[in-house]
């Protein structure tokens, strides 16, 4: 069949094929993952390889599904198709040289990863950041969070078969990207945070643009609600689908909107306050329904809360430097020691752990991707649902594959 045929080219020996007849000659052997997966399958089941090329796996995720009709008996995500070994690159590059990688881990919320790495290095090396830079980081990071949620919103509806919302979301997102381009120079893979500040200072164009953007997006959100959120087809598709109870969140270490959609008010901005977030008045949206709709509603509410943060930050943006005068040169050496820095990304808790022995490059860098833990619970969550529900659940977890594979 189509799915297994493409995998034959992998050429991986199928350990279980020959002897005990897992795959007979008549069938085309899949790769090791397929064969092992088939071992546990009931004879009447249909094994379906969803991905790595599939419209709703957003990039190159592969999910092995055992189907009974259209009901999912078992699911197993197979990762690694977009693995780039960022953690190895971090060990052979100086911290400054590794910065551009951070724009490419999670391309939708690149600035959060920027921040996580910069924060870990700053904590380890004791680098100070000027206040203005902190505010600019908050503003750009929150703008980036909105752009990530907007894209998720559009793409999620695309998964659910509505083609138009993504275009409306992109219309608004385009304005955001223009603003972020003013600050970072790029439109997607930002790398604009620096150890001790940010790359560019905010000019009047940026400040003015942000001030105009906030009311604009607020005026658009009711349209989003009326067109999509209240749409009966959408609500029937995702309400009570993909229920993730609280203990499942804990067992898998899920975070971000996945945890908050299950009634856990956990947000790194509150739990481990960093930067100047404690100066702003905003809420952590929490829903208790534990279903896909709850996660949807959390993200939509987060857009509004991010707007609130940006509004306060831009109004109280202090004057001053955007780079600390004592900010280290790009060739600086990390002192020995370890530091863990977590930030709240659009998908959850992003953590960077650096261990350094005082050498030119870090000794070990661990990138903790929220999507990795969030996707891990898919197999348990999707059991017993319909194929269409699996798509709805995958989408509601908001995966970004390059982040999961790193």
């Amino acid at each position, binding site marked *: 069949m189509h799915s297994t045929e493409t995998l034959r080219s992998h050429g991986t020996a199928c350990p279980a094929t020959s002897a005990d007849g897992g795959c007979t000659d008549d069938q085309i052997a899949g790769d090791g993952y397929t064969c092992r997966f088939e071992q546990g399958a009931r004879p009447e089941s249909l094994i379906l390889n969803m991905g790595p090329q599939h419209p709703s796996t957003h990039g190159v995720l592969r999910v092995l599904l055992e189907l009974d009709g259209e009901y999912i008996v078992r699911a197993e995500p197979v990762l690694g198709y977009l693995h780039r070994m960022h953690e190895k690159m971090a060990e052979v590059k100086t911290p400054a040289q590794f910065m551009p990688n951070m724009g490419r881990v999670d391309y939708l919320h690149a600035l959060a990863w920027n921040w996580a790495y910069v924060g870990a290095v700053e904590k380890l090396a004791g680098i100070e950041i000027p206040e203005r830079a902190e505010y600019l980081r908050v503003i750009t990071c929150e703008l980036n969070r909105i752009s990530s949620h907007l894209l998720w919103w559009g793409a999620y509806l695309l998964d659910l*078969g*509505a083609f138009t919302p993504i275009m409306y979301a992109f219309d608004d997102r385009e304005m955001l990207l223009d603003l972020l381009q003013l600050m970072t120079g790029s439109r997607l893979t930002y790398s604009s945070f620096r150890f001790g500040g940010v790359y560019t200072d905010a000019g009047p164009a940026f400040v003015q643009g942000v001030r105009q953007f906030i009311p604009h997006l607020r005026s658009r959100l009711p349209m989003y609600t009326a067109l999509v959120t209240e749409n009966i087809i959408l609500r029937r598709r995702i309400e009570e689908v993909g229920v993730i109870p609280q203990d499942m969140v804990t067992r898998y270490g899920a975070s971000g909107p996945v945890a908050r959609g299950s009634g856990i008010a956990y947000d790194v901005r509150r739990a481990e306050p960093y930067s100047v977030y404690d100066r702003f008045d905003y809420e952590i949206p929490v829903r208790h329904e534990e279903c896909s709709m709850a996660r949807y509603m959390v993200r939509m509410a987060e857009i509004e809360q991010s707007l609130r943060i940006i509004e306060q930050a831009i109004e109280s943006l202090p004057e001053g430097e955007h780079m600390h005068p004592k900010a280290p040169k790009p060739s600086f050496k990390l002192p020995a020691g370890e530091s863990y820095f977590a930030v709240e990304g659009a998908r959850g808790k992003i953590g960077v752990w650096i261990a350094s022995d005082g050498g030119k490059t870090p000794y070990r860098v661990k990138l903790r991707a929220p999507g990795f833990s969030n996707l891990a619970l898919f197999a348990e969550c999707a059991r017993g649902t319909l194929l269409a529900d699996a798509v709805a659940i995958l989408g509601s977890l908001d995966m970004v594959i390059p982040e999961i594979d790193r």
Partner: protein
Amino acid sequence: MNATISFDSVLHVVLALVGVAVFVGLNGLLLVYAERKVAGFIQRRPGPYEVGPQGILQAVADALKLIGKQLVRPDRADPLLFWMAPVLAFFPVLLLFLPIPFSPLLTGWDVNLGLLLILAFAGFNVLALLLAGWGSNNKYGLLGAARAVAQSVAYEIPLLLAVLAIAFQEGTLSLSAIVGGQGGMPWQWNIAVQPLAFLIFFVSALGETNRAPFDLPEAESELTAGFHTEYSGMGFGMFFLAEYANMIVACSVCTVLFLGGWKGPFLDGAWWFLAKVYGLLLTMMWFRWTYPRVRFDQLLNLNWRWLLPLGVLNLLATAFVMKL
């Protein structure tokens, strides 16, 4: 039906078939273009724009591309079923156009069982989708085919009930007679007396033609392309044409049954018929670019729990009123 089949009438039918083929081909191009333009405008972009002025030749270019592409059959697909499916999807649709009265004069074959003929031949479409999904030896195709069969079979029933209500009311199965029974003004159309039947018919027609929000057999975010996953070139092109042809048939029948066919407030004629058909087609497109897709069990629930009881009630009510 006329007992004598003269040479004239056979010639008429053959000519009509040729005409229908041309009509379907041209309309396929037109509707593809219209669909993409509608999508574009709804999404605040220009849609096709590069080929020809305002992109009007885009559909032609697409058609040429499809014709020029290689036909690929998967290694282990059943050749007979695999190639039969697109043929079976497209050609029976042409027959469906024969009894449709575009105007009193412009009717392929004014047969007094026209409605029955259409319902009978429409069944071929299901078979084609089943063969396509089964024959292509693809799991997505198989799932799509299974969906297509369950969906088409289910939605045929309320469709039939809605049609029956009109047939009761008019006392005929001839399409031109049904049009003849309606007046020119909108309030003299059957939709004014049978709004519920119209709704049931239209929703079922969406389900029968696999149009969004009921496009489950090819739901690309779930089944990549459903039953036509493995088809390339004109294999896919035939399914594509058949989908649009089916839409036209469904909208034409809807126009005949509920919207007064060729009759209008003034200047009765085929233009009224076409205007109404295109209006309905645009509505279908509007739906597609607005709504998410329903889930399969919901699709069947909607049918069995809402449309079917409503259809039966409507039919009973119609019969009751007729008896009075």
